[in-house]
């Protein structure tokens, strides 16, 4: 008996020794996301879903970190804005691309020039704004823009730098499927529709990332994504729809991680002369008729925060003094009567049905609320592929849309969404109702020339107040919330980013 025990103890000891002597298992992560990558060309897809993949293979001159998306150095160590048109970037030394080519100013010039080529880029707007790129030396670059663009540097976290030599030498088709960047991860294998496998870049300039192998499984169908998590096949899942929130919460093995999203959802109203909505009292009445708290509670199931403006807190131009108009249907009715519409009027509400969380349901609710004060709403809800071209045409009357600005600068958003349509100057391209207000346009144009960030921020706040209180350009509804789910008890340290990008160097376990 004793002998047997001794033997067993000896074997157990040996096993412990063997395990301890072996190399510590490399950390790895398997996750399911709601969007497939379209390509591995960092300039060809400006959607956040695409940029999220690219941010792991490539670096920008700058990067955004933390809850407020603070702009911090990446491939550039610092930057200056000497005059309204110039931007000077000092580059990081000793950085290497995945193919061991050194990173220099020539790569920066090449990458930014590439932005202007519609064959490979969806960042045409950024590319075409640049008048010249001067390489002072291998580690100093000066950009000159055609017009003053106050938010030029704010965009630097989403313009990724490619290797000039290998991008030019390779076949264009190969560039679309094999990323060669300076990023924290290298692409190991991409099987379209199945998975993307990443391995750590041990020579990364910020230090090798803690997780060595990442497997991303794009699963578009939400219930399958949930099943993948529930069955333990993946450890993190992005994009939990509100209707699946309860089942995830009930499952003891899973944990929900939520993060207020940057995107706000709002209603855009036209102001064509002679139409009821040209009267500010009507706009106010429509605003006050909508019970946003109920929308958040019933339709968003609590996963949204009421909005009083379009930009979110970290955005330049966010005005903390703005508050929502109260929900007051009686007052709304009175305002309508004062404006000369005691019996209401008829309006068409257009919106997408496959773009935002519960978009179609929100449109239906808005129609219902407006009906209560006598406004008859014709609903015209359609797929985004048809809806957005209509917004671009500017022929709509009243529509639901969502927005957040990747540069964290409200000025750019306002030029695109609220400035009077002006094809020559490229203003108001997504001003879908053809809204027009001369005072707003003038104040907005004046902000583009202000270099001092504090002064500019104040002016933008003033502009924001004017748009939301005096003009009611839009009726703000709510900020969305991003929902993720993870396996509980696996030690995953995951703090979602406000832009929804999955940047794996920031995840540990």
């Amino acid at each position, binding site marked *: 008996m004793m002998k047997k025990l001794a033997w067993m103890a000896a074997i157990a000891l040996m096993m412990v020794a063997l395990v301890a002597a072996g190399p510590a298992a490399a950390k790895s992560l398997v996750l399911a996301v709601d969007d497939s990558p379209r*390509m591995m060309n960092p300039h060809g897809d400006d959607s956040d879903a695409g940029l999220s993949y690219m941010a792991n293979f490539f670096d920008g001159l700058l990067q955004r970190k933390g809850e407020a998306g603070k702009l911090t150095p990446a491939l550039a160590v610092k930057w200056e804005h000497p005059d309204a048109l110039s931007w000077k970037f000092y580059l990081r030394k000793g950085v290497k691309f995945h193919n061991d080519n050194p990173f220099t100013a020539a790569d920066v010039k090449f990458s930014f020039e590439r932005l202007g080529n519609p064959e490979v880029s969806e960042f*045409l707007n950024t590319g075409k704004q640049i008048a010249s790129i001067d390489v002072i030396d291998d580690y100093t670059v000066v950009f000159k823009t055609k017009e003053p663009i106050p938010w030029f540097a704010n965009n630097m976290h989403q313009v990724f730098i490619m290797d000039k030599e290998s991008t030019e030498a390779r076949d264009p*088709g190969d560039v679309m499927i094999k990323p060669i960047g300076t990023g924290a991860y290298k692409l190991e294998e991409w099987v379209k*529709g199945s998975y993307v496998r990443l391995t750590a870049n041990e020579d990364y300039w910020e230090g090798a990332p803690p997780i060595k192998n990442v497997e991303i499984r794009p699963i*578009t*169908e939400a219930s*399958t994504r949930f099943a993948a998590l529930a069955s333990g096949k993946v450890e993190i899942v992005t994009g939990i729809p509100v209707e699946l929130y309860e089942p995830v919460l009930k499952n003891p093995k899973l944990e929900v991680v939520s993060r207020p999203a940057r995107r706000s959802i709002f209603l855009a109203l036209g102001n064509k002369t002679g139409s009821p909505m040209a009267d500010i009292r009507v706009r106010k009445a429509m605003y006050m008729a909508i019970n946003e708290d109920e929308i958040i509670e019933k339709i968003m199931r609590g996963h949204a925060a009421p909005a009083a403006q379009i930009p979110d807190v970290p955005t330049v131009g966010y005005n903390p003094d703005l508050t929502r108009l109260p929900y007051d249907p009686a007052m709304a009715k009175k305002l309508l009567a004062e404006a000369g519409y005691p019996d209401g009027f008829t309006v068409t509400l257009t919106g997408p049905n496959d773009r935002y969380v519960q978009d179609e349901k929100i449109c239906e609710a808005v129609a219902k609320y407006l009906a209560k004060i006598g406004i008859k709403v014709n609903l015209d809800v359609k797929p985004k592929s048809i809806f957005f071209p209509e917004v671009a045409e500017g022929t709509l009357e009243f529509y639901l849309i969502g927005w957040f600005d990747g540069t964290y600068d409200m000025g750019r958003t306002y030029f695109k969404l609220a400035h009077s349509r002006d094809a020559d100057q490229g203003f108001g*391209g997504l001003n879908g109702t053809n809204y027009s207000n001369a005072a707003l346009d003038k104040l907005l144009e004046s902000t583009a020339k202000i270099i001092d960030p504090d002064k500019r921020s104040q002016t933008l706040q003033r502009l924001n107040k004017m748009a939301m209180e005096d003009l009611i350009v839009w009726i703000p509804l709510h900020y969305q919330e991003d929902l993720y789910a993870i396996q509980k008890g696996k030690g995953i340290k995951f703090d979602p980013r406000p832009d929804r990008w999955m940047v794996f160097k920031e995840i540990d376990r």
Partner: protein
Amino acid sequence: MLTYIIRRLLQGVVVLLAVSLICFVIFRYMGDPVLTLAGRYATQEQIQEVRKSLGLDQPTYVQYVKFLWNAAHGNFGKSYVSRVPALGLILERFPATFELATCAILISLVFGVGFGVLVALRPYAWHSRAIMAGSLGGISMPTFLTGILLIMIFAVYVGILPPFGRGKTVEVGFWRTGLLTVDGIRHLILPAITLSTYQLAVLLRLTRAGMREVMAEEYIKTAWAKGLSPMTVIVKHALRNVLIPVVTMAGLQFGELIAFAIVTETIFQWPGMGNLLLTSIYETDQPVIVTYIMMAAVIIISINILVDIFYAVLNPKIRYD
């Protein structure tokens, strides 16, 4: 026979032309891809530049003729979304769909015909009634429901089969197959069953109806009277005659399974062509959609021709002149 095949091929070309024309006209109204491609902040001028670079500023008939000309040379254009040749994108996904559809059609043939015969021989037995009730369920249950139920039962609650994807695959030349690994086959089971349910029920009902009719025929009575074994009577004399419509149906279904396994592929995140088609529709990726539909038409037309030929093999009485 040869003239017949040539005539069918010519008809096929006409059908393809018609399909391509309809596709082209419909997708003109399906949304404007240029807007996304130019980027969110593009100005009107930049949008026009992109439109021009894609040749979308030209009138539809010019675009159509250009498309036909290029297609005739094997060039179906580049995907707007991933900016690589559309045909390559689709062919890359073909093996996954082909393997799934083949397994599904084999399951439905084996079980459909098997159960069909069983039910026809003893129509009033309790197992026959159960099978018929099940087949009614198979016909009426929507694919996405079958899929989700199977996932919930076998992947989440019981946990013996994987819920999504293709598992481990092996590349044999250009063909990425999941049939050579245990993991790959385990991943195939649920989607193949889901995809086969409807077809299985249809084949079952077809076989049953045919068998019941044939079993009452005089020549079957003769065969019984001659004292042939039940196996010979049922399989050789009865089933062979019943199989003609069944094979036609299975053939047609096979084409459809390859071309339109969209729902099943989406639910199981099966990396096949249907999955690609759905994403492409969401993204208004016209070159991929048009190429896909053209390819689906080619597959269905060729399978129809093959079925016709097979017909003659099964039933020597049929002649094509």
